[in-house]
């Protein structure tokens, strides 16, 4: 999921940074997309799954490089991912 989508998403915001703003990142288009329930579901799904996979891999990598306090690490990374996902959901709700 992350493997399929992330490169294209990064490309979109990179283009915006280079001064060539893709249509979807114009305020009206993106606002309309995020205001529709299907757009909200799509955005929160991508964000939640990406954060979750990152948290899990970070946990395993920390264990690999010698951080053996796995319980604490797991609690920290998963709650960070959870909090950021909840924040994203709240922002989407406000759009």
């Amino acid at each position: 999921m992350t493997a399929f989508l992330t490169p294209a998403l990064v490309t979109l915001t990179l283009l915006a940074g280079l001064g060539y703003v893709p249509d979807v990142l114009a305020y009206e288009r993106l606002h309309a997309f995020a205001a529709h329930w299907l757009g909200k579901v799509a955005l929160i799904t991508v964000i939640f799954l990406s954060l979750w996979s990152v948290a899990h891999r970070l946990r395993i990598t920390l264990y690999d490089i010698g951080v053996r306090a796995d319980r604490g690490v797991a609690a920290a990374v998963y709650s960070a991912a959870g909090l950021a996902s909840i924040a994203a959901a709240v922002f989407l709700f406000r759009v």
Partner: protein
Amino acid sequence: MAEKVTRRPYVREVPRVLWFLRHPRYVRYMVREVTCLFIGAYTLLMVVGLQRLSEGRASWEAFLEMLRSPWSIAFHALALGFSLYHTVTWFNLTPKALPVQVGESFLPDRVVAGAHYAAWALLSLVLLKLAGAY
């Protein structure tokens, strides 16, 4: 008990933190794991973008302006490189992770990986097209 053991068992010394420098294969594994930091940072950037979007037009325009800073462009270039590395290494190991059996035999590795590459290319092109990137 312990002092009666006459032979000394072989205990291999393994560095606790930098063990992965011992073999290029381990280094590549670690590089792949580190890609998750960039993917995570990028996803958090998306969350911040949503916050700006929810605050209204002026805030979103300021966010787009922030994307133009050299730091942002450097971060995006790095994140794109790492995410491509993550994608390519994952697709290359899909034949191991998802072997497809047809009758008695398994589909060749390149068919399984190739299907993933094809789906990826199609999905990316459709997404970029819908987003109006080209």
